[in-house]
């Protein structure tokens, strides 16, 4: 076949999708039954299997609906098992199960991929992990966003109550840079066999860079991270969860100084926090009893102003991974919305050879 695709026909189909309300604002790929079949051939899961049901909305998403939305998002069929694993992984978070998708926070799924599938699918793990330019990195998270919109009907201004949201809400997906990380892969740390193809996902609220090419002292470097992690704006409750996507250079520097991932977590747990006077100055010094300890402004000084309150309660609240290029010492702090499940989901791929295209 040498016939070139007709752009006018393509545009007509794209506009049709807009008219149905199926898009997130950008054009989607019109999905045919033939394309859908290719997606479904990449998983052994039943097309009618319900991935998730939101009882309060009376809506559910099946494997087949997920496939349609993955196709519309621009995924290749072979990405589909990653989409399914990413969905399963994020739905392990208490916040995602508890209405987080409709939160005024407008949290974004952070999708991290481990294993040889990163190379097979050409998932970017190095330069520009947050910057776009790679098909799987761009389309896999977008598939989740379209599932939310089209399967569950969570659309902005109605069931999606996002106040402002975060930039790139449906575009945060990358592979861990296992090759240049001095530490074990995230999925291995979470208990899966070394070399497993796996996805780890959590809901996140912000991403803040730490640019430190200034010191060779690991404690000075960690203090720079602690300063970013310890800002008061994120403190809604008694505690918070913040992770770091270390660039290879920072990770290697810490590892060379003898820090394991657990050591880094322990250091941050000890040093991230603020003194009472800072919390009082920002109206966040009081806490409700029970639950998550919602913060508020107290009427009277509760404790002396120099009393230090640590913000990170446990290693589980400090996820650490390594990604990005080794060309500069620039890392990223991210805020977990609620608490990450601290688990990774193995990617299930159909073993049957797939006949692609036609």
């Amino acid at each position, binding site marked *: 076949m040498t016939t070139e695709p007709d752009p006018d026909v393509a545009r007509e189909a794209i506009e049709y999708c807009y008219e149905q309300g199926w898009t997130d604002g950008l054009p989607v790929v019109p999905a045919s039954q033939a394309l859908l079949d290719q997606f479904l051939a990449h998983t052994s899961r039943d097309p009618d299997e319900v991935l998730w049901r939101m009882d*309060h*909305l*009376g809506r559910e998403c099946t494997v087949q609906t997920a496939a349609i939305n993955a196709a519309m998002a621009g995924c290749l069929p072979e990405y589909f098992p990653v989409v399914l694993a990413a969905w399963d992984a994020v739905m392990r978070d208490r916040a995602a199960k508890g209405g987080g998708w*409709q939160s005024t926070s407008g949290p974004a799924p952070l999708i991290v991929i481990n294993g040889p599938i990163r190379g097979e699918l050409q998932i970017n793990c190095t330069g520009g992990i947050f910057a776009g330019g790679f098909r799987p990195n761009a389309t896999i998270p977008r598939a989740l966003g379209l599932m939310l919109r089209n399967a569950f*009907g969570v659309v902005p*201004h*109605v069931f999606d109550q996002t106040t402002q949201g975060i930039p790139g809400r449906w575009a945060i997906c990358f592979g861990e840079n296992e090759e240049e990380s001095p530490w074990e892969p995230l999925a291995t740390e979470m208990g899966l066999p070394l070399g497993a193809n796996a996805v780890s996902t959590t809901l996140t609220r912000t991403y803040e860079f730490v640019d430190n090419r200034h010191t060779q002292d690991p404690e000075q470097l960690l203090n720079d991270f602690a300063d970013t992690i310890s800002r008061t704006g994120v403190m809604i409750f008694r505690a918070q969860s913040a992770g770091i996507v270390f660039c290879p250079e920072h990770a290697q520097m810490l590892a060379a100084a003898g820090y394991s991932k657990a050591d880094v977590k322990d250091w941050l747990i000890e040093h991230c926090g603020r003194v009472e006077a800072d919390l009082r100055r920002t109206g966040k010094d009081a806490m409700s009893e029970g639950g998550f300890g919602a913060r508020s402004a107290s009427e009277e000084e509760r404790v002396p102003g120099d009393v230090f309150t640590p913000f990170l309660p446990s290693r589980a609240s400090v996820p650490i991974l390594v990604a990005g290029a080794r060309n500069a010492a620039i890392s990223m702090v991210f805020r977990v919305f609620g608490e990450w499940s601290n688990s990774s989901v193995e990617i299930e791929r159909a073993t049957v050879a797939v006949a692609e295209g036609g």
Partner: protein
Amino acid sequence: MICSDAFKATADAMADVQGAPGYAYLTTPHPVAGLTPEQVRERAESVVDQVARLLSE
């Protein structure tokens, strides 16, 4: 049901998906989160008559 007026669109949509379009509920001015206990009490007092009316209709 009472919600702050910033959530009206969501409340109406919830009524629709629950099969009760036009479900009657009350609103109170937004925001609520930062109010003092006294202000919350004032809010409650300002709608108490409407709550009674809604429940008895």
